[in-house]
């Protein structure tokens, strides 16, 4: 099964390498084909893993001496997230094909090779990170995703976009120092880069490694104080924002932290306490930042920040001993990926058709574009955690885990309560915008909207369905 994972990774990278050598017209198709093949591999892997008794396997691909340098882990965690990442990646390539054309009202464009090459490479890097069994593998792909993100944020080459791209790269790179340190400590402590070895570390080393990973994770997942890059990263083309800055790259942080927590056995409580506190601080900060946002994408960026905080909170709780919270965290990674991608793609559809993504000028979407209107509602409700949409299920489990842990750690209870209050607040805020934008008579921008390409419609519908179903998939998967 590891062959399938490896194939998915390689297909993407090879495709990305080939794209610059081809004429510009071919780039789109190669990219979509590459993503489709990668998705096919991952799909087969998922099905086979799901039906094959779900044995976790780790294969070492590269080792020197007795040090494992790079390998693939196929377990329920990596397969689930890998599936989401590659699936959404494929959807994004389809969506991008329609989005990047001259008919786009906000950014008329021809879809240059650079875009598709970076996007495909990113899919590969993401899959590589998810399946990686070693911390060095994670570090490498961590950096590659950062580089791809840099290339894609600056895609439009406006000075502002380039500055934002650079900011994103540097801030995450700065945070990745933590991962460097963690990797070094892991190697020195266990003689291997294998994450599986973390459980064998001494307490001090474990705390150092975990904090290193946590800092890197904060950077990549845009948590305070490294969050500055994410709202600015919205200069990227919208499919990119959807994929990199909502569904996958920002999940790198939480994913590596989740892996670390899962591999390190007993975790000293200080990690969990610090993680949970920072998560809630970010949560509240992110919420307060909703308030002044008028740009839909910026609003979504802050929403991503807070949702990632939930995952950090959950993982911190997991490190304090709640298995429930761990499952909740993983499910939330999975669910939020679909819901937030949907929301971003709705934003993309709006800017494509209406030429703007400023909320005050988007009114009466339902009347002109029922599909987009429905998707808007579904996405908002899914993100804010209203059943039967997916966000609720994972949030519920996270909170349940919090109450479970609060017995041993008194500090956790107020944190969970704050998180719950934030959840109401963010619900209110999104509901407000839903009420403002979706029903009622159309504004001029919406009334004169261009038709939405079929490919984009298909992707939206798929994501709407996933926004309802994904929690059940995650739930049945994680057991």
């Amino acid at each position, binding site marked *: 099964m590891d062959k399938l994972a490896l194939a998915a990774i390689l297909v993407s990278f090879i495709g990305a390498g080939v794209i610059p050598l081809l004429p510009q017209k071919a780039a789109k198709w190669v990219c979509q084909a590459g993503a489709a093949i990668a998705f096919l591999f991952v799909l087969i892997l998922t099905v086979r893993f799901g039906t094959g008794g779900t044995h976790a396997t780790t294969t070492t691909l590269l080792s020197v001496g007795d040090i494992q340098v790079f390998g693939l882990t196929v377990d329920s965690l990596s397969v689930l997230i890998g599936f989401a990442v590659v699936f959404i990646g494929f959807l994004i390539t389809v969506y991008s094909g329609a989005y990047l054309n001259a008919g786009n009202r906000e950014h008329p464009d021809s879809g240059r090779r650079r875009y598709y090459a970076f996007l495909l490479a990113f899919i590969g890097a993401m899959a590589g990170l998810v399946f990686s069994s070693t911390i060095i593998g994670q570090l490498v792909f961590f950096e590659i995703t950062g580089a791809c993100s840099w290339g894609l944020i600056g895609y439009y080459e406006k000075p502002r976009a380039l500055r934002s791209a650079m900011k994103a790269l540097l801030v995450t790179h700065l945070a990745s120092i933590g991962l460097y340190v963690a990797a070094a400590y892991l190697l020195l402590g266990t003689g291997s880069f294998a994450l599986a070895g973390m459980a064998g570390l001494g307490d001090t080393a474990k705390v150092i490694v975990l904090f290193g990973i946590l800092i890197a994770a904060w950077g990549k997942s845009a948590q305070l104080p490294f969050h500055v890059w994410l709202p600015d990263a919205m200069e990227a083309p919208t499919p990119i924002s959807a994929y990199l800055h909502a569904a996958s790259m920002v999940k790198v942080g939480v994913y590596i932290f989740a892996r670390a927590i899962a591999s390190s056995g007993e975790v000293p409580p200080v990690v969990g306490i610090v993680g949970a506190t920072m998560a809630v601080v970010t949560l509240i900060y992110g919420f307060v930042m909703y308030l002044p946002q008028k740009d839909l994408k910026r609003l979504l960026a802050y929403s991503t920040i807070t949702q990632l905080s939930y995952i950090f909170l959950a993982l911190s709780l997991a490190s304090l001993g709640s298995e429930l919270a761990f499952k909740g965290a993983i499910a939330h990674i999975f669910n939020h990926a679909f819901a937030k991608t949907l929301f971003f793609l709705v934003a993309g559809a709006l800017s494509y058709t209406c030429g703007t993504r400023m909320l005050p000028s988007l009114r009466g979407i339902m009347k002109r574009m029922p599909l987009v209107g429905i998707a808007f509602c579904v996405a908002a409700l899914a993100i804010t955690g209203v059943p039967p949409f997916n966000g609720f299920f994972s949030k519920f489990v996270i909170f349940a885990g919090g109450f479970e842990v609060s017995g041993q750690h008194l500090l956790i209870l107020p944190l969970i309560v704050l998180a719950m209050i934030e959840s109401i607040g963010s619900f209110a805020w999104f509901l407000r915008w839903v009420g403002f934008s979706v*029903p009622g008579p159309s504004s001029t921008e919406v009334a004169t909207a261009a038709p939405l390409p079929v490919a984009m419609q298909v992707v939206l519908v798929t994501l709407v369905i996933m926004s309802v179903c994904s929690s059940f998939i995650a739930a049945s998967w994680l057991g």
Partner: protein
Amino acid sequence: MAPLLLLTLSLLAYAGGGTASLLLGRNERAAIATAGLSGAAAAVLGLAASLPVVIAGAGPVFDAAGPYPFARFVLRFDALAAFMVLVISLISLVTSIYSLAYVREYSGRGVGAMGFFMNLFIASMMLVVVVDNAFWFLIFFEMMTLASYFLVIFDRDEKSVSAGFLYFLVAHAGSVAIMAAFFILAAHAGSFDFEAFRHTSLSPGAASVVFLLGFLGFGAKAGMIPLHIWLPSAHPAAPSHASALMSGVMIKIGVFGIIKVGVDLLGGGIAWWGLLVLACGAVSSVLGVIYALAEHDIKKLLAYHSVENIGIILMGVGVGMVGVATEQPAVAVLGFLAGLYHLLNHAVFKGLLFLGAGAVISRMHTKDMEEMGGLARRMPWTAAAFLTGALAISAIPPLNGFVSEWFAYQALFSAALGGSFGVKLLAPVAAVALALTGALAVMCFVKAYGVTFTGQPRSAHAAHATEVPKEMLAGMGVLAGLCVLLGLGAPVVAPVIGRVAAAVAGQGQLALAHGTLVAPGSLDQAALSTPLVAVLLLGLLTLPLAIVGYFKGRRSAGRRTEGAWHCGYAEDPHMAATAGSFAASMKVNFRPLYRVRTVLNHGSEALDAGLRWTTAMATRVEPTWDAGIVAPVTRGVQAVGQQVQRIQQGDFRVYCLYIVAALVVLLFAAVR
């Protein structure tokens, strides 16, 4: 057939009908018919499922695995659940029939979706009451809110959207509070099954926290003062049959939840919980009716009456809880009886009133009573039905409202006889509040009925109104009939509900009926025979008529029909008391209470101001990261770099000196 099977079929019918309606969206007639008929059929199935259980007082339990290990899908069809299903099905049956005609009003605005949301709404309400796992409970609770939210904003105008926002927000906040309560329970019980909750004993402190959270959450749903703010705007915004369901049934889920948490899950526990419920009930009832009096919008008026009636129900429930906590079985059962009976009654007559209001509005195209008048002549059946509802809600014997309020009085009095000082103090006060409420309710409905249906038409619409279609009349007729039946049939109905109440209180059955008499436990205290009252009242009505007939003189025949200024007796629209003039004196007398409402509104203004301030702060804070950290760091690095560049100032002779300097420093390091 087994109740659970019927229940499942009923749910399937709702789901299937709703989905079909949604899919039929373009074909509106078919969609309306599908939604309405399937809803009616499902409601009948629901009735069939619940009636036996209600009568038997106990029902089956169903258990299946859920997607998460902790989320077992447990259905518990006990007496209380069945009673709630009964109430839901009853109103749903009526509204479904009513909708067949009424929804045509909305054609061209997505009636398919309306049918879908209606059916979804009803189905999720049913699931909320029968499900026995906290996780699923919350899901269905939220889905119920979600579906009704879309009904509230169905008009898609600014007013309904903001009403829907407020509604959903409060409900969601409530559900989060409930969630927290369940989490605390689950943390102790180790499971999310209600069954496990029931067998967990919490410390009094924790139990109180759980109860308060639940009380807040469900109280918000119930529309209890001070958590009622959403209700007067949300109910009127929805289509009338949806309002009937929301007001008639959905807010009762809140009451149901309070009973569930306070009595079922926590086992009654502590006396002050009951007193709290009682006090909130009293306040809600009085304030609700007072605010209702001041309303000119017919649906808003009805909405405030819902607040009032929830108050009355809560008084009963409060007494019941006090009874359970203080181990006074009779008081407990009586209290719950009063609460549940009123719950059923309120569902019936409030449903009726909203449907009636809907009928009027569908002809008037306004909700403002000031523009109505004289409709009784043009819409006689509607008027009759509305009148029945008005009489019932005003607790005029022998209709159902009177019976349940009578039980409420009895419950309060019997509670006042025993129990602690607090109970002794509060119960009579509550009784007084109930009395005041009753009086004001009468006044309010005199106004509502009088202004709407009697006198002269005050607008062109009113002058040209016609009767509504048969389906709507049928719906109203059923409910009007039920008002009478539940009143007259009290000797039959009360023992049935008594059994439910006993099951809730966990006590034995109370003997409630003696022939045509209804008695609160013992005949010594008080007894009521609604059939007798009816006969007496009929007699009372016939007597004056006979007298009038007998003394009918010429004077009345020779009345001049000239205008008043021409010394005639002809009516003029300006002569009739308007809605405003009716309430004017009340507004003066109860000024302080109205001011409470203004203060509450100010509260929301304060919230707005807070939001504005926070937004302003956020606007200021957001760029400070860039301006305060990122920019200084980058600029700092640049500046340091530029300073460092001075090292490379161009003169190689100086460079040579650098080398010498390095050599000297390192040599010192070497020989040190």
